[in-house]
């Protein structure tokens, strides 16, 4: 499965997680368990930027 960057809107944690367009997977933050998870597209454009 494809892996993409995610950003937790609760605790600010940035992580990589699975992404499947056809069978969406439930997103949850590995650090705080929140489901307020956003695709971190900024990171994609600038892969060298660090958290």
């Amino acid at each position, binding site marked *: 499965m494809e892996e993409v960057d995610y950003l937790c*809107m*609760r605790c600010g944690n940035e992580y990589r997680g699975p992404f499947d367009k056809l069978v*969406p*997977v*439930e*997103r*949850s933050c590995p650090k705080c368990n*929140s*489901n*307020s*998870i*956003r*695709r971190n597209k900024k990171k994609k454009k600038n892969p060298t930027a660090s958290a």
Partner: protein
Amino acid sequence: MMDVGRHSKINLLTYSEIENIGGYIGNFQVTVRKKARYVDEKECNACAECEKVCPVVAADEFQEGFSSRKAIYMPFPQAVPSVYILDDKDCLGHNPIACGKCADVCEKNCIDFDMKDEIINLNVGAVITATGMDVYDPTEMDEYGYTQYENVVTSMEFERLISAGGPTEGHFIRPTDRKTPKRIAFIQCVGSRSNSPIGNPYCSNICCMNTIKDSLLLMDHYPGTEITVFYIDIRAFGKGFEDLFQRSKQAGVKYIRGLPGEIFEDPKTKNLTMLVEDTVANSVTDFEFDLVVLSVGVIPRRDSDLIQRLLTLSRTTDGFFMESHPKLKPVDAPTGGVFLAGCAESPKDVKDSVTQASAAAARAQILLNAGKINVEAITSQVLTDFCTGCQVCVKVCPFHAITGGDAKLKIPVEVVEAACQGCGTCAAECNFDALLMKHFEDEQIMSQIDAITGENAADKVVAFACNWCSYGGADLAGLSRMQYPTSQRVIKTMCSGRVDSKFVLHAFENGAPIVLVSGCHYADCHYIDANRWTVKRVDKLWDKMERLGIRPERLQLEWISAAEGQKWANTMKDLEKMREQVTQEEIEHAMSVLKEDREKAEAKKKKKAEKKTPVKEIPIEASA
């Protein structure tokens, strides 16, 4: 069991699995896969000739692997249906045809190597979930040496060793030297009431009484056996249970409060030794036993996920299926027309299983007797004057309840009311407000937002919660008296899929500091996958908020099941902290940019609409 096989009203489908369940209360469509057993069920008369000639020897699962069976076999002597089965994984003849001995001797020609799985379609009004339980596997608990020491057995294995129908025909022996053990230990709570990551925190309910029963069986068959039971608490709470416990003690069974830390095997005698602290006598004693029985706990069936998904059930934190209400609706599943019976709901003994099964049957009969069911008037309706035929709703409806529509020919879509389940995703996704979600209309929800944000908006969190899961989670938090800040105001929708972007934006425009959208976990969504659209919408909203210079963190998303009262309470505490950090400036900025953005969009729409004929709205009247 025999009665089931004989009953004219029971269609018994063994060696069969549910592939799919669709529909709703009163009208479920079920697809069953009846797996090929390679023996004609109607013809086989269990003459056993096939078994005699079969050259394959395999471990007998029913006897816990203590004895063997053939590749063609009877599951156990009293099996219903009383028919042989051929295990295609063990059989030589199946592929490639090399053996075929059984088929040669079968006089009735009922062995068919080419038998195929059969798909059976059923239509039913109610479903009873009696999927049972699995038994805890203590292999991982190194301290007890199960699988490492042969004379450490589980209580399930003990059942076979003592059974007259077991591998030893009821002669109770220990595995290493096949002698009848004289000193036997039972260890309670194996895998239960444990905080370890490989155990379960709950009490498995049946193991205390099972051990007491086992001790009495042993004392009856082999008087003079020295039996010691190591326990945390003996829970003999049912009718007649205390009596059995006392009988066991009077028969000479020793009960010691305390569990062994570790079991050691004497390499020569294969006896087992352990050091146990008796927490009643306050003493530490060395024990030696010939056999140790691990009284293993009960766990949810390992394949619970499948049935959970098919019937959109929920599970409590222990993994068993959740009932509609823990006290008042203990056999109803949250899904209408689905009932729970036996260990699928929680660990229970035979009597309790029978009781619950009869209750489930009675509950189902209420439904079947009525013959008809009132369906809540919560369905979608097309406002044909507004519909452009763009078919967005057709795409998002999880139940394919919206059909037709043509944007070019300006033909509006149609809602098939019987198929519509009322999630409201269509109304949320429609860009033209052309779908009216009955009882959860835009005006109704907007009025709730207005009322919340009318006064002291900055002190409140606007929380959208779906009827089935998150609203129930909030209920459970209250029911469990979990305390959290008073800032949250709940707006109930049937599904999080109903939460229109404009609701969220409206709340922010009115000065709400934090908005929460909450719904069911993916596996629990009561509208198949409607909450996937919630995620897409929230994703878009975060993008929009960022574009407008509003901190996207102010919009939160959470999946909270009806069993997760704690998660609801914790989320409310988190959100309150986040609310305190939202500044008045931020709130006002969001209010002004959102107002501007909305007015721009409205002006654009108005301009477009001026070219067309005006549309009619349905007025709300005070009196029905």
